């Protein structure tokens, strides 16, 4: 259909998917994450979070998952973060910036961080053995279609995640209704 969508494309994209870009994006994501929890000003934290989300979207792109990257940008960076900012602007920032941070929760946080570190180390030591063999290294061009078949199945056949997908959407519907009922006393 589109002459641009030839198999050679994946090879041509390869120069972008270099360790340099990986470490750049990963570093940005981590730095953003650290800023999110250390900034006293909530709006600065939110901006740092956006940087993190965008960096993660970049990582998705490097994994040849453009659809996931696009959704990441639309839903998280574009939608959810705007709502975050909306709420942050409504709350009293002056007061929250004076509150003590990590009040009495830091041992828990430390424990959680140690556990996560242990997990990473074990994953690093064991290597690929932890992950399923079948990697979804799909060509960029058909990535979206692959996701569609995973979620919705092909003609006459349910995909592997169809049921989970439907359940998730039902859950979201319930959440929406719950939110409406909680905020509006009188409908």
């Amino acid at each position, binding site marked *: *259909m*589109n*002459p*641009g*969508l*030839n198999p050679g*494309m994946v090879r*041509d*994209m390869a*120069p972008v998917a270099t360790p340099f870009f990986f470490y750049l994006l990963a570093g940005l994501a981590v730095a953003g994450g650290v800023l999110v929890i250390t900034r006293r*000003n909530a*709006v*600065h934290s939110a*901006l740092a979070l*956006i940087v993190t989300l965008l960096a993660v979207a970049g990582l998705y792109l490097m994994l040849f998952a*453009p*659809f996931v*990257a*696009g*959704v990441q*940008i*639309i839903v998280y*960076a*574009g*939608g959810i*973060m*705007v*709502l975050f*900012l*909306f709420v942050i*602007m*409504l709350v009293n920032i002056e007061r929250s910036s004076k509150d003590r941070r990590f009040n009495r929760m830091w041992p828990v946080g430390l424990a959680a961080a140690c556990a996560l570190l242990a997990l990473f180390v074990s994953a690093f030591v064991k290597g690929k053995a932890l992950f399923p063999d079948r990697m979804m290294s799909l060509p*960029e*061009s058909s*990535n*979206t*279609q692959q996701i569609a078949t995973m979620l919705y199945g092909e003609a006459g056949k349910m995909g592997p995640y169809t049921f989970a997908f439907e359940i998730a959407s039902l859950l979201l519907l319930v959440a929406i209704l719950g939110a409406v009922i909680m905020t509006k006393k009188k409908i």
Partner: protein
Amino acid sequence: MPNFIMSYLNSKDAITPGAAGSQFWALIYVFVIFTGVSVAVMAMNWLERKALAHFQIRLGPMRVGPHGLLQPIADAIKLMLKEDIIPAEADQFVFWVAPMIGLLAAFAVYTVIPFGPSQAVSDMNIGILFMLGVSSLGVLGIVVAGWASNSHYPLIGALRSSAQMVSYEVAMGLAVVSAILMTSMNASGTGTLSMIGFVRAQQEQGVWFIFKFFPLGLIAFVIFAIAMVAETNRAPFDMAEAESELTAGYHTEYSGLRWSLFMLAEYAAMIAVSSIAVTLWLGGWMRPFPNLLNARTWDFIFSLFPALTFFGLAAIGIVGVVRMSSHSFFRIQRIGLAVFAAVLGFIALLLLVIAVAGRSADANVAASSASRFREGIDYVYWFVLKVAVFMYLFIWYRATWPRYRFDRLMRVGWKVLLPISLGVLIVTAIVGVIVS
């Protein structure tokens, strides 16, 4: 290097530099598009002021250059030289970064806009998704600017803008989805998210999506057309600025270059969303009736349009020269306008030559680079013409309508546009299944 250029131009498959993996060409395209959009924004600025003025029985800018043609340049210089004021109580860093966010978002979109089958930086597989996603980032700039100004009017403007954009994005997205559905109404039954894919799908199906499953396509298009005005904060949905209510909304505290960045972002975003509308529903770069009137003669006739347009503009310029007062005060203006008309006429001649040369090349079986060049001009011309219609509509709306009220706007978004777009989506799906 020349070989490199010619090899790209002569390559059989018309593919975008991004798809070809040619970073050099991608950079060239980025540069050309960035320059082109900046110039278009300036032209749009002038055009808006002139057109609005004539709607309102005024003349608009008349002093800087003949008929104010140099006004945008003068404005740009003024804005760049103006003192850059950051309010003392503002959040300095965020205040500084906010216009950049808006501008980056507005310009990043242009990487996937297809001005022609190969006239785009890249043909992303998720093109439309990327466009919607990145253009939705633009609101972050506005929200953050309003907050960082640490002032009430900008804050209200930012709140309005964020609520408005989030709600209209939903209707906009659903309208887009119905267009995406239409791309799959082909033999293979697979659709696409690629921007170039959209136009190709319309080409294959032989119909602009605005007329597909009439009136479904039209309704989806109208919803998109409404939502895109809201999305770009333009009248009658310019609640975030609303100069009579919020003085200037989110950019009340901005001045000089930073302010002009907001304006640049706004106009760039207008062109971007219009491009989406053109690509999705109005056949993108395709000339009218490409499948119906497909004889080579018709091809030639339509390829004369760019030249004719520039001839027309040159003629208007000449009329302007003739009608201008012969008083010595206007001498420089007369000369300026005459030169301007001459340049336009020259461009028209050039285009004419290219059209004719491209046609004679058509006779040969092998497509020469001349004919490819001619086709490229045609594509860009028709695309830009369609976008220009939208730009004019933006001005027209602004001249005609009062401003919506915020709660009404939200009501229209959630209670009218959203259900209709959902309904259109469902009906499109059903009709699509029945037809196929």
